[in-house]
């Protein structure tokens, strides 16, 4: 049935929806205790165990957990209660539950960017032995970056990935082909392409559109977007080099030529963006891109599935994805100057361009509360493992609604699943190709995962960027302000502890 309705259908559906709701109410009153009727099936491993799983109010992320919970209960007997709270307050809500000793949440499905704040005080269970004894999980099928960095802290595994998050650049294949342009390899290319298309009508509605659209709103995703640009200038020696601090001194890498360059590029993208870009979050930038209003955008994997959603998209099969553009000049950490890429400075460069795909936010993952009862922890682990096993995960990542993006190697092999989900084969190859290229890069950038990461990024960096873009600060002032702010937090929380945490997050011994 089509979603767009004629007037008659419309009224009919209103009536149907109303009566369905009434019916739902009545049923609720009539049979208040459904679970009591269930007969205990003997021999199930976790019969009678209840596991509280907390995540944010979906449909993304929560939907697959809720949908698969009954199947899991049939298999093992464990009852999974999925509790959801608004996304903006999930971090606080979990932390309050843990710090006050309430411990009402047994399993948390969260952004591993917050991991340090939960792991350092010892709130999360070390999953290493369980994972080693769990062949069904097929741990080695998970992309190495997620396995070795994202799920790991200080050499121990704390989370099971359910989602792969990193940023890519999306472009309109139809436009670039028509003009004979290649997708951007460097950020200079990005600016050139954006400039080329800015002010032209890109979707045939007669209104001038924009070369680029990036979520730059304060208090939203701006600081990840910016770091996607900065990363390739700051890190060139592989993930363990770190893109935020010097791993030996914890001196921020935020006051040097490379950083200035990144700031200027970030600001310049605004010239080819919409006038109210400073107030755009990803909702706006995605909406604009999939309705054909922007030629380029910078985003997580979600655009791939949104672009094939008929309720949202006007650019189906006109979208290409590519690994984050890079740079031919990178930071020399000794001098603070930009140096040209060569075999030493950029060992992982492709065609002389240093790419640094940024695993912003980290991808939703599951972890277990250390203070939960032993049996509940076992059941909780079994559920996370079940969700991440290829039989379930490889289907879920192709469904847009789940919000899950690919993170397993086997998920790139099977093009059929993606075609079945509505992508053309070419689009699927292009999309998966960009993901694969990013994930295979040894120079992927791990998001900042030290205690207080929210303060470094969500408060200080976010505010400085917003003020810089609004013209309150010059490039130099912005870098000084940011460096001072970061050092202040570091000194407050203890430079040595923070350095140790930063090294732990990068798995440096």
């Amino acid at each position: 049935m089509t979603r767009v309705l004629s007037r008659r259908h419309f009224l009919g559906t209103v009536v149907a929806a109303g009566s369905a709701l009434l019916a739902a109410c009545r049923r609720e009153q009539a049979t208040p205790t459904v679970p009591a009727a269930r007969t205990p099936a003997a021999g199930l491993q976790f019969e009678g165990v209840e596991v509280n799983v907390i995540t944010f109010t979906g449909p993304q992320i929560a939907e697959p957990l809720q949908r698969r919970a009954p199947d899991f209960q049939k298999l093992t007997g464990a009852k999974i209660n999925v509790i959801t709270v608004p996304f903006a307050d999930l971090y606080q809500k979990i932390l309050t539950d843990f710090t006050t000793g309430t411990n009402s949440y047994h399993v948390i499905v969260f952004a591993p960017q917050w991991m340090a704040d939960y792991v350092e005080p010892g709130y999360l269970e070390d999953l290493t032995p369980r994972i080693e004894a769990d062949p069904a999980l097929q741990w080695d099928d998970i992309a190495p970056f997620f396995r070795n960095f994202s799920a790991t802290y200080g050499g121990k595994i704390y989370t099971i990935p359910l989602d792969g998050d990193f940023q890519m650049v999306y472009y309109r294949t139809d436009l670039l082909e028509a003009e004979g342009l290649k997708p951007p390899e460097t950020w200079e290319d990005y600016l050139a392409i954006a400039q080329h298309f800015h002010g032209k009508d890109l979707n045939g509605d007669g209104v001038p559109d924009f070369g680029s659209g990036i979520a730059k709103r304060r208090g939203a995703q701006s600081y990840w977007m910016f770091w996607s640009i900065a990363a390739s200038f700051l890190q060139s020696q592989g993930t363990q080099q770190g893109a935020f601090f010097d791993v030996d001194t914890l001196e921020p890498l935020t006051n040097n030529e490379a950083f200035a360059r990144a700031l200027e590029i970030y600001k310049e993208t605004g010239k080819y963006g919409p006038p109210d870009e400073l107030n755009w979050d990803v909702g706006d930038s995605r909406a604009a891109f999939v309705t054909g209003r922007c030629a380029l955008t910078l985003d997580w994997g979600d655009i791939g599935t949104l672009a094939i959603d008929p309720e949202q998209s006007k650019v189906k099969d006109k979208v290409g994805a590519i690994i984050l553009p890079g740079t031919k000049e990178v930071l020399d950490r000794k001098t603070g100057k930009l140096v040209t890429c060569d075999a030493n400075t950029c060992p992982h460069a492709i065609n002389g361009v240093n790419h640094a795909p940024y695993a912003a936010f980290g991808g939703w993952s599951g972890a277990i509360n250390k203070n939960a009862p032993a049996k509940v922890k076992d059941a909780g682990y079994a559920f996370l493992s079940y969700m991440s096993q290829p039989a379930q995960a490889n289907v879920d990542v192709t469904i847009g609604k789940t919000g899950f993006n690919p993170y397993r190697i086997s998920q790139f092999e099977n093009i059929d699943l993606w075609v079945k989900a509505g992508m053309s084969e070419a689009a699927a190859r292009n999309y998966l190709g960009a993901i694969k290229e990013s994930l295979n890069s040894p120079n992927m950038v791990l998001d900042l995962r030290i205690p207080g990461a929210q303060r470094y990024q969500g408060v200080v960096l976010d505010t400085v960027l917003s003020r810089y873009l609004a013209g309150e600060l010059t490039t130099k002032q912005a870098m000084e302000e940011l460096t001072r702010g970061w050092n202040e937090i570091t000194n407050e929380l203890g430079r040595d502890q923070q350095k140790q945490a930063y090294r732990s997050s990068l798995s440096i011994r």
Partner: protein
Amino acid sequence: MALRWRTSPTGPSPLGAILSYAILGFWTFVVLFPLYWLVITAFKLPVHVNEGPTYIPFVDFAPSLHAWRYILIDLGNDTLRPYLNTVIVGVTSSILTLIFGAAATYGLSRFTYRVRLATVLVFLGFVVLAALGIQLGAPWQLAVAGGLGAFALARGAVLRRVGGPRLGNADIAFWMISQRMLPPVAIVIPIYILFQRLGMLDTRTALVVAYIAANLPIAVWLLRDYFRTIPLELEESAAIDGANRYQILWRIVLPLSLPGLVATFLFIFVLAWNEYLLALFLSSAKAQTMPLLVAAQNATRGPQWWYMSVLILLMIGPVIVLAIVLERYIARGLLLGAVRG
């Protein structure tokens, strides 16, 4: 109803009426246009919202029920449960607030309270001591009982003879309203800890108690002015007829201040109905309320305008009905006239 009193006995002049209607009409548009936008957004597909503005269903976009279907059918009980919670918590807390608030207001406007500052300070001292005791590991029941006992002892033995400045009615009223001055983020964690210790997290009772405390000051302040305008003679004559204080309050003061009570009720009900931060922290699954669901529609994919619009419309419906039902009671003149007659 012959006694209906009119604000302007002559009625507005024709020119005045036209001007009045022009202003009222303009503000009606200002008020209704955002609501209209919510209504049509609730029937738009995401692509219709994102493509640029469209204004009239069936004319420049084809309405869709996808958002309603998602909220009412796909979510089903996940919408119904918060909705019932919101109704129960909103109604209970507002009625209780009004009862406590009316009683307190009557007390504050008809009695003279003179609390010694020294007593308050000593009381605060014992609270701090009890808190320290709890922090050091004493069971809270013991600490509270000990603190209260010590305070009672001190009050009986020493404080009765101490002089010093006293606090009057105005100070008590100001103290009450000052409880609303701290921003919510500053109080939510302590409140959470409080209810956690009491084992009341994720219950509707916790929300009701929290909302009563939060909204009482507003109720007292709003009602104070209405109670002030009630002629004292009526109370005196009732007293002469042998009514006690509670009867006077119930039979004379409350009916006479009905418009004020209604306006106050409506306001505190709306506050409780829409409260977000306390609801977020004091609930986790069973006691969640609707404002959480509205705020939750801005998640990793940006605001889901269509779902949000549906939820806002669902939330505002009952309040509109309530406002229409209660509006007539705000016609104060009628009641005053009736009592006089």
